[in-house]
Structure formats: structure tokens, C-alpha cells
């Protein structure tokens, strides 16, 4: 299966705009479930405003949140797909630039030292494009995540040591949720990376933070940890927007990787309540949009 790069460019543009406007059904259901269970009056009002905002965004075809984020594209290439990878990345970048100019969107991306904004949502190394390979045969999928800064600024890495054990991981996650307070725009998905190298650990945390609600860690040990942590962080009472209540996190998600005998790394990356993502899947039948 060959992939038309003009279609990839169009999809990269379309995906950025769709992700900013339409929340995935699992996140919508997650907010509704929290609103039903919330016992704090202020928190219930705030969750109600979030639900109203989702409807207003859809009715007005407007962006859910002003933060257009740092654009991330996760590409998964199937086994029977033939594609020029270099040109694919260029096509994605062009689509991202076009979304910014043509919609228009606020370019939230600046040079880290000069703070210069090219007004394209692009810059050195941005958009972030992650390339991976999937078991699927004739399918190429592109997931787009506009990662907002309120939650991205709530990111931490701790290179704990083996003698500190799993307790260090659990304590670190609880303390990050406390430290983050209202700054990460809760209720959040708390993404936790456990193991790997330092950079892999942070990457796992990001993957965990952006996984659909209801999904489980494929590692049974990780799945047990995320179940326990989900319950624990919602005992803290941080609440929506840090103004108190039961709804601090939709869930804690954990991703794990093997690590070194001397290492015990843990990373936290959060996703805000506007947990936006969109997906385009290319198959011989055409392009299909979803989440």
C-alpha cells in the first residue's frame, strides 16, 4: 500500500483543527461521570461549566481551549505500507503550518532562547513527530495531540534508587499531584512512566497521560499500580481547577519499561481535562477520521 503524501498533509492540517474542537467520547464520558459523582458544590459547578463548554465548542465549531499547545503527531506504519519517511515528516509539518495559517490558530510555539514566534506552530524539532510501526498490514495511522502547557508544565522526573523501592514511585506521584494543584487544569489524567532510561521514562509518562480513558497498562504490574494510584490521588481533595472536591484526576495511567539494576526512575506528565486527541487512519479504502 502506497500513501499519498498530499493526503497526509491535508490530514495533518485537518487533525490539528479537529483535535482542538472535538473531545474524544471517552473524555466526554469521563467528565460526565465525575460530575455525577462529585459531592462538592463548587466542583460540581466547575464540571458543569466544562460540560457546557464542550457543547458550545461543538455548536459554534470553535476551539475548546485557547491553548493550541505544542503539536504532537504519533505515526504508526503498518507492515505492508510503503512510504518515504523523510517526505512524510515534511508533509506533516506543512499540514501543521497550514492549519495555523488557514484556520487561523494561535501559534503557541517559540524559540526557547529568543522567544521568537514564527506564527506557524512549528520551530526547531516542532511539531514533535513520533514514528512507530504497527502489526496492522495495510494501514498507516496518525494520532494528533495538541499538548497544552498548563498540564505540560506539570512534568517531573525522579531518578530514584532501587533501595527506595516502589514506595518511592507511589510517594512521588502523590507529591506531584499535590505540587501541581490547580495549575494543570484538573481533573487530569496523571501519566506515570516507570523504568527505562531517563528519556524513555518521560516518554512513557506522556504516552500514559494521552491514552484513552478506560484503557489499561499492558503490563499487569503496571495495571495494578495505576488502579491503586487512581484511588489514592482522588483522596487528596485537590478537585477541579484546584478549588477542592472529589474530582482531582480522571485516572492515573502507568506505562512501564525495563530498567537498569541500579535504577528506579519515575516520571509524571499530566494531561488537562481538555484531553484532546484526533486520529486519521489511511487504508486502501481511503482516510478515516476518529480518535
Amino acid at each position, binding site marked *: 500500500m502506497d500513501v499519498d503524501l498530499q493526503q497526509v498533509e491535508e490530514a495533518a492540517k485537518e487533525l490539528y483543527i479537529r483535535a482542538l474542537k472535538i473531545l474524544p467520547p471517552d473524555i466526554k464520558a469521563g467528565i460526565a461521570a465525575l460530575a455525577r459523582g462529585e459531592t462538592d458544590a*463548587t466542583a460540581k459547578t*466547575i464540571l458543569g*461549566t*466544562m460540560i*457546557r*463548554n*464542550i457543547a*458550545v*465548542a461543538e455548536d*459554534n465549531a*470553535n*476551539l*475548546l*481551549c*485557547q*491553548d*493550541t499547545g505544542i503539536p504532537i503527531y504519533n505515526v504508526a506504519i503498518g507492515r505492508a505500507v510503503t512510504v518515504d519517511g523523510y517526505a512524510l515528516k515534511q508533509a506533516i509539518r506543512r499540514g501543521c503550518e497550514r492549519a495555523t495559517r488557514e*484556520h*487561523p*490558530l*494561535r*501559534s*503557541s510555539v517559540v524559540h526557547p532562547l529568543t*522567544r521568537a*514566534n514564527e*506564527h506557524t506552530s512549528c520551530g526547531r524539532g516542532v511539531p514533535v513527530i513520533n514514528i512507530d510501526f504497527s502489526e496492522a498490514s495495510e494501514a498507516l495511522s496518525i494520532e494528533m495531540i495538541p499538548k*497544552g*502547557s*498548563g498540564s505540560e*508544565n506539570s512534568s517531573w522526573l525522579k531518578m530514584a534508587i532501587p533501595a527506595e523501592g516502589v*514506595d518511592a514511585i*507511589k*510517594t512521588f506521584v*502523590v*507529591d506531584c499531584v*499535590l505540587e501541581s*494543584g*490547580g*495549575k494543570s*487544569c484538573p481533573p487530569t489524567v496523571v501519566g506515570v512512566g516507570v523504568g527505562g532510561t531517563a528519556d524513555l521514562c518521560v516518554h512513557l509518562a506522556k504516552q500514559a497521560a494521552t491514552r484513552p480513558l478506560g484503557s489499561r497498562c499492558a503490563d499487569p504490574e503496571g495495571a495494578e499500580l495505576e488502579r*491503586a*494510584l487512581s*484511588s*489514592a*490521588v482522588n*483522596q*487528596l*481533595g*485537590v*478537585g*477541579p*481547577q*484546584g*478549588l*477542592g472536591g472529589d474530582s482531582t484526576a480522571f485516572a492515573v495511567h502507568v506505562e512501564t519499561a525495563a530498567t537498569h539494576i541500579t535504577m528506579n526512575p519515575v516520571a509524571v506528565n499530566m494531561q*488537562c*481535562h*481538555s484531553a484532546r486527541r484526533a486520529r486519521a487512519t489511511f487504508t486502501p479504502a481511503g482516510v478515516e477520521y476518529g480518535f
Partner: protein
Amino acid sequence: MAHYNFNTPVAETAIRALRVNDTVTLNGTLYGIRDATQIHMFDRGRKTRFDLAGHAVIHTAPNVRKVERSEAHPAGYAPVCVGTTTSARMERFTRPLMSQYGVRMIIGKGGMLADSLAAFAELGGVYLAIVGGAAALETTWIEQIEDVDLDDLNPESLWRFRVKGFGPLLVAMDSHGASLYTGLKQAAAGRRAAALASLGVK
């Protein structure tokens, strides 16, 4: 817990009457301000031609569309999506905004810290919490982008919006030393031990 409708600008006495958990809805002028705006105003000596005295500023950098200047769009910009960013990054600018420009209300999300609370008490100001991430709704409260200053910093320009029914906003920090965030942060920290115990942490 009272509700107030304010037409901006607002006198100090009206601000001093506000208590945490009151709510406020704004009409009239609202200024949009952000990290870079304030870095340039307070670290790099730039000034704005706008009169911020008695006004509210919101921590924002909006999505806008460039359009022909007209009666409807006097600044040459139409609002696309106007929301709110995390306030705590801009903590050190609260005091100079109030002492040098007379700002009375700061609108944001996530709350501000001790120095802002002290400035609100000394100079007569409040922090009004808006729901972050609810920008599509917030945009429906914006009537017009009336003017813009320091626009070389776009999108972190100093924006002058005309707003109608902007709220309700929650008074989360008042001029009497009360902050909802301080109490909630302490309460959450107090639950840390129980949360860790539930995880079997020794």
C-alpha cells in the same frame, strides 16, 4: 456569598467589599495580558498607552483572525477563541500591575501566591477564578477586540476587549487576606499521609 455585576473600571471600595466565594460578572472593558507582555512592561521598561486604573486584566493570549479595520473590528482583529492561562507563572507581576498601573482585578486559573495576596490586601485588589479550558464559552462573552498595544509580542500583546456578561467569576483571593487556594492546599497536604497509607507506603 453575594453576586456582583460590575461595569469597569471599578472603585477601590467596591473591590474591598468582595469576599472569597462571592461571584462577579463584568461588563465593559477587559484587558488581556500574558507572560511576555509583563516581562516587557516590567523587566524591559516598556510602557502601555492604555489606562488600566480600576480595571481587570485576564491572563490570556487569544486566538485571533486578522481582518480589515472597521467599526466592528477597530483593531483589525476578530476574536476566534479567547481563554485563560495558568496564573501562577505571572506571580511577580501582580504588585507592579497594581502599584504602577492601578489594576484592581486579576482574572486567571489555578490561583496565585503569597505576594499577590499581600498586594491585594495592601493596594485593594482581588483574584477572580475562571474555569480554565472553557474558552469556547468564554469567547461568547467577548463582544469585540477594541484595541491592541505592544502587538509586536503577538499573541502575547496587550489586548483591550469589550465584554458583556463576562462571568460569573469566583472571588478566590480577596483584599482581606483570604485565599481559597491556601486553605485547600493545606487541606490536601493534610490528606497526604492517608493517601500514602492507602497505597501501603511505609
